C-alpha cells in the first residue's frame, strides 16, 4: 500500500514541506511506498515580502515569482489545479480540473490568506494596498506622484499577513519622503484596531516612541467601518472620521472557503492543536502557515518552521512511529525602520519579543534573506 500525502497550497509552507518530505522520505518515495502530491492553483510560487518594496519602486513583482516546477523536487507530484472540496470522513478531495476525486492518507492544508476588501464598503474603490501584486503596482503609481496631503495607513483587521509590515510601511514612507524633500508637505497617520499600535504589547511599546519621534500620527481603537471614496473619508466603528488624500489599507483577511465548508474552522482558518498542528475537527489532517489558527503571526518564517514540524510528524506516521516533533511558536521577523535600517525580533509561545536596536546591518540582512529565500523554498536553507 502506498501512503498518499496531499499538500494543498504551494506557497511558503507547502513548498518547504514538499521539499522537506522529498528529502526525508526520498527512499520511501523511490520505492513506491509513499506518494507526495503538491497542488497549487498557480504555476508560479509567489514570495509576498517583495511587495513591501514595490510601492517605493525598489522591487518588481516579478522578483517575487518563480515557477514551482523549478523549486520543487522531482520526486514530488506537482499538480497545477485548485482543490474545490474536502471530505474528511471519506479522506477524499476534489480538484477543479479532474472528473474523479482523489483519496489521501494525510492531508496538509497550506492555503494561506486571501484578501476581503469588499467587507468594508467603499474600501475597494477608495483604498490602496500592497498585500497583493496588483495592489502594490497600483500603489506605486499613486505614491510616486503623491507630493502633498494626508497619507493614511489603516490596519483594518487582524489577523493579517505579516503583522510587522504596516509598521514597516509607515517607517519606510516617512524616510523615503524625507529623502525626497516631501515630508513637510505630507502628513502620515497610522490607525490600528486596538488600544495600541501593534497586537503584541512588546512590539507596540517599542514602535510607539519611534512613531512619535518621526511625527507619524497615531489613531488607535480605529476599526474601519466604511470608506467614502468621493469624499475621501474613512469612518470607524468607534465613530471617528479621518480624511485622507492617499489611503493605504491592510484589508480584512480570510482563509479559503473550502476550509469552512469542510467544517475545519471559521473564516477559512483551520482549528489546530498549536503544538502538533493537527486539525482538531478531523483525523489525518494538518494545517500550517497562515491557514493554521495558532495565534502566532501570519509570517513566512512561521510557515517555514511549521513545515519542518509537519514534515517530521508525517515521516514518523509513515514509518509507524509515534510522532514527537512539536511547534513551539517560533517566529523570526526583520522589521524595516526606514529605507536603510531594520530591527529584528525572535519569539515563541513562551518567550516574548524584544526588538533589537535598528541598524544598517539588519536592513541588509533582510534584503539578503529576501534574495536567498529561493534556497529556503528549495529546502536548502
Amino acid at each position, binding site marked *: 500500500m502506498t501512503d498518499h500525502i496531499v499538500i494543498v497550497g504551494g506557497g511558503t509552507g507547502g513548498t518547504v514541506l514538499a521539499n522537506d518530505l522529498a528529502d526525508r522520505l526520498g527512499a520511501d518515495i523511490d520505492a513506491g511506498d509513499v506518494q507526495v502530491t503538491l497542488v497549487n492553483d498557480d504555476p508560479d510560487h509567489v514570495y509576498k515580502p517583495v511587495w513591501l518594496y514595490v510601492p517605493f519602486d525598489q522591487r518588481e513583482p516579478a522578483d517575487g515569482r518563480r515557477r514551482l516546477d523549478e523549486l520543487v523536487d522531482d520526486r514530488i507530484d506537482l499538480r497545477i489545479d485548485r482543490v474545490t472540496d474536502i471530505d474528511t470522513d471519506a479522506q477524499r478531495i476534489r480538484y477543479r480540473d479532474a472528473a474523479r476525486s482523489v483519496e489521501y492518507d494525510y492531508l496538509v492544508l497550506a492555503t494561506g490568506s486571501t484578501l476581503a476588501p469588499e467587507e468594508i464598503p467603499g474600501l475597494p474603490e477608495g483604498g490602496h494596498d500592497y498585500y497583493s501584486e496588483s495592489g502594490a503596482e497600483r500603489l506605486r503609481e499613486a505614491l510616486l506622484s503623491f507630493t502633498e496631503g494626508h497619507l493614511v495607513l489603516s490596519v483594518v*483587521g487582524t489577523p493579517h499577513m505579516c503583522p510587522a509590515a504596516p509598521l514597516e510601511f509607515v517607517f519606510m514612507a516617512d524616510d523615503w519622503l524625507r529623502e525626497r524633500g516631501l515630508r513637510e508637505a505630507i502628513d502620515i497617520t497610522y490607525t490600528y*484596531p*486596538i*488600544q495600541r499600535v501593534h497586537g503584541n504589547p512588546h512590539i507596540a511599546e517599542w514602535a510607539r516612541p519611534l512613531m512619535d519621534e518621526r511625527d507619524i500620527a497615531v489613531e488607535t481603537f480605529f*476599526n474601519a467601518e466604511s470608506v467614502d471614496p468621493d469624499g475621501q473619508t474613512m469612518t470607524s*466603528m468607534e465613530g471617528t472620521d479621518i480624511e485622507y488624500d492617499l489611503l493605504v489599507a491592510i484589508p480584512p483577511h480570510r482563509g479559503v472557503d473550502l476550509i469552512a465548508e469542510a467544517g475545519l474552522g471559521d473564516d477559512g482558518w483551520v482549528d489546530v492543536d498549536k503544538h502538533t498542528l493537527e486539525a482538531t475537527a478531523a483525523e489525518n489532517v494538518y494545517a500550517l502557515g497562515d491557514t493554521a489558527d495558532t*495565534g502566532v503571526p501570519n509570517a513566512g518564517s512561521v510557515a517555514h518552521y511549521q513545515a519542518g514540524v509537519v514534515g517530521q510528524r508525517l515521516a514518523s506516521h509513515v514509518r509507524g512511529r509515534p510522532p514527537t516533533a512539536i511547534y513551539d511558536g517560533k517566529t523570526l521577523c526583520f522589521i524595516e525602520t526606514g529605507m536603510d535600517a531594520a530591527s529584528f525580533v525572535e519569539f515563541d509561545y513562551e518567550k516574548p519579543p524584544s526588538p533589537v536596536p535598528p541598524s544598517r546591518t539588519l536592513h541588509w540582512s533582510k534584503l539578503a534573506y529576501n534574495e536567498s529565500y529561493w534556497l529556503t523554498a528549495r529546502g536548502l536553507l
Partner: protein
Amino acid sequence: MTDIDIEPTETVDARGAACPGPLMDLIGKIRGVESGAVVELLSDNEQSLTDVSEWTEESGNDLLEVVEADDHYAFYVEKA
C-alpha cells in the same frame, strides 16, 4: 456559572486565543450583527477584562455583563 437572563444573538468562542485575538473576534462579530443584537464572547485571557471594557466604552457599545466561569469569562456586549 451564574444564572443570567441574557439571550445572546451570537456567541464567539475565543477560548485559547492569545490577546488581542478575543477582542478582535468580538469586534469582527459586532461588525456583522444588527443594532440591538447581543454578542457573547468567551475568553480565558485575563487581558480581555480590560480590553473588552475599554473597547466597548470607546465604541459606544454596551457591556451588559461579565460572568466568571471556572476557566473562562463570558462577556455580553449589546451593539449600539
